[in-house]
C-alpha cells in the first residue's frame, strides 16, 4: 500500500500551506513529484489515487494532470533514467551521436529499459542547457558537455553504486 511516512506527511502539509485556504489543489504538481520520488520512480494508479485523497480532490483531477506533464512516469522505469535532449541546439552539437552511442552501449532503444532494470533511455525536448550541449538529465542532475568517454564514466559510476 502506498503511504507517505510521518515525515513526508509533514512535508505535504507544508506544501499545502503555501497556498491560501481552500486552494490546496495547487499542491498537486509538487505532491506528484514527491510521490514519484517516494514510490519507485513512477506513478501508479494507486499512487495517484492516494495523492488525490490527500488533497481531497477526485481521481480524475489527478490523472488529467499526471498525464499532461512529461516528467511524470506512468510506467515503471529503470533505476537510472537517461533523458537526453535532442532539440535543435543540442542536435547542432551532436546529441544524435550521443543517443546512438548510449543505445549501442546499453543495447536498448529509446524508450526502453535494460533487462536488468538498471537503465532507461529517453529523449526529451530542450532542458535549458543549450549552451552546455550535448546534455542529459539523470534524476534531478544535469550532465552537460557529454562525450562518449563521459557517457562511459556515467554508466560505470551507476553500475558501481549498486
Amino acid at each position, binding site marked *: 500500500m502506498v503511504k507517505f511516512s510521518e515525515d513526508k506527511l509533514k512535508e505535504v502539509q507544508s506544501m499545502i500551506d503555501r497556498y491560501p485556504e481552500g486552494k490546496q489543489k495547487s499542491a498537486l504538481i509538487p505532491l506528484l513529484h514527491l510521490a514519484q520520488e517516494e514510490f519507485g520512480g513512477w506513478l501508479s494508479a494507486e499512487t495517484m489515487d492516494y495523492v488525490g485523497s490527500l488533497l481531497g*480532490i*477526485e*481521481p*480524475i*483531477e489527478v*490523472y*488529467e494532470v499526471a*498525464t*499532461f506533464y512529461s516528467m511524470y512516469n506512468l510506467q515503471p522505469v529503470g533505476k537510472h533514467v537517461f533523458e537526453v535532449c535532442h532539440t535543435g541546439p543540442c542536435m547542432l552539437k551532436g546529441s544524435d551521436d550521443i543517443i546512438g552511442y548510449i543505445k549501442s552501449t546499453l543495447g536498448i532503444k529509446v524508450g526502453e529499459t535494460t533487462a536488468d532494470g538498471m537503465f532507461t533511455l529517453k529523449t526529451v525536448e530542450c532542458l535549458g542547457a543549450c549552451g552546455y550541449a550535448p546534455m542529459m538529465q539523470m534524476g534531478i542532475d544535469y550532465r552537460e558537455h557529454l562525450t562518449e568517454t563521459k557517457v562511459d564514466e556515467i554508466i560505470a559510476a551507476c553500475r558501481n553504486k549498486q
Partner: protein
Amino acid sequence: MAEAVKTVKVTIDNITVDVPVGTTILQAARMIGGDVVPPAMCYYSKLQGSGGKCRTCLVEVSKGSEADPRPMPKLVASCRTGVMDGMEVKNMTSPKVEDARNGVVEFLLLNHPLDCPVCDQAGECHLQDLGYQHGKQGTRYEFKRRTFEKHDLGPYIQLHMTRCILCYRCVFTADQLTDKRSHGILSRGDHAEIATYIEKSLDNNFIGNVIDVCPVGALTDKTFRFKNRVWFTKPVNAHRECKCCSGKVTLWQRGEEVLRVTARKDQWGEVEEWICNECRFEKKKTTDWTIEGPTHVSRHSVISQGHYENTIKPKETFTAVHGGRNPQLLMDIHSVSEVNDPSIDLSQINGPATSDVYNHSTKQA
C-alpha cells in the same frame, strides 16, 4: 443620453442588429440567423466555459468599435468575443475567414477516420456538414491516422476515440450536470483523449447527455437499436411523466419501434432540456411515451426563443447584403457523397457496424 445604453449595435456581414451588452459575436449572429452564423463545433450556450477551442467560428473584426475603430489584428473566435458598440464583423463576406475556416476544417478532419458509412452520427454530424461545406475533394494528409486503445464504457455509451475532436463539451457536461468531477481529458497535444472514467459516473442519472452534446460520433448511444442511419428514422416529439427530468424528448422511430431517444434540440443543434438516463436508455416502447407530433427540424431560420430574445429580423434581404450572391442552401448529403447513399441499408448489417463489414456487396440496387 439620459438613459444608460443597454444595447449595442453590431454589424455582421453588412446586417446591423441591436444586441444586449455582453452578447458574443456568435450569439449576435444567431439573432440574425441564416448564413451569417459561423459554425460552432465546441461552443455550447448551455455549457459554461465552453468554446474557443475548435476555431471553426473564427471571424474577422474589421472595425473594433465606435470608440476604437481599429480592426482586430487577428481573426477572433466569435463564440468567445464580446461585441462592442459599432463593431463590424465579417463572416461569410471575408475571404480571410473562408481561408482560415477551410484550414480549420482540414485540421479537424486530418486524423478523423473516414468511416462515415458506419458511423451512427452520419447525417447529424456537424463535422460531416462542415466537411461538405468547406472541405476539398480528398485529403492532403498522407500519413497514418492516429489510433487509440479501445475502451469499453459499459452498456450505454459507445466511445470511438478516433472520431473525437476534443471539443471538451462532454467534459463540461459531465462536470456541470453531475455533482462529482469524474470525466476529463488525459494526455496532451495530439495524444490528448477523453478519459474513459465516464463509466464510473454511469450511476449518475444525467451522464447520457454527453451523447447529445458530442458534435461527432465519438460518444454514441449503445442502446440505439439496429444502428440505423438517422435519415431512415422519423423523429417525433414525445413526453412522459418523469421524476428526474422534464421527460420531453425526441423519439427516433421506425414504424412502431423506438430506435433511440434523445433530448430535443434547437436549430443550433443544442439540447433544449437535458434528459435523464432512464428516459434515454430504458424507455424503448412507444407505449412508454405520449407522442406529440413530428419534430420540426429547422436549421437556418431566425429563432425567437430561449435566451435569444432580442432577435431582430433584418430588413435587407440576404441576397442583397451578400452582394448578389445567393444564400447557401442546406445541402442534400445524398447528392454529394456516395458514402451516404440511401440505397445502402446499413441496418442490414448484423451487429455493430465496422468498416470491415461495410462493402458494396451489401448495396441493394
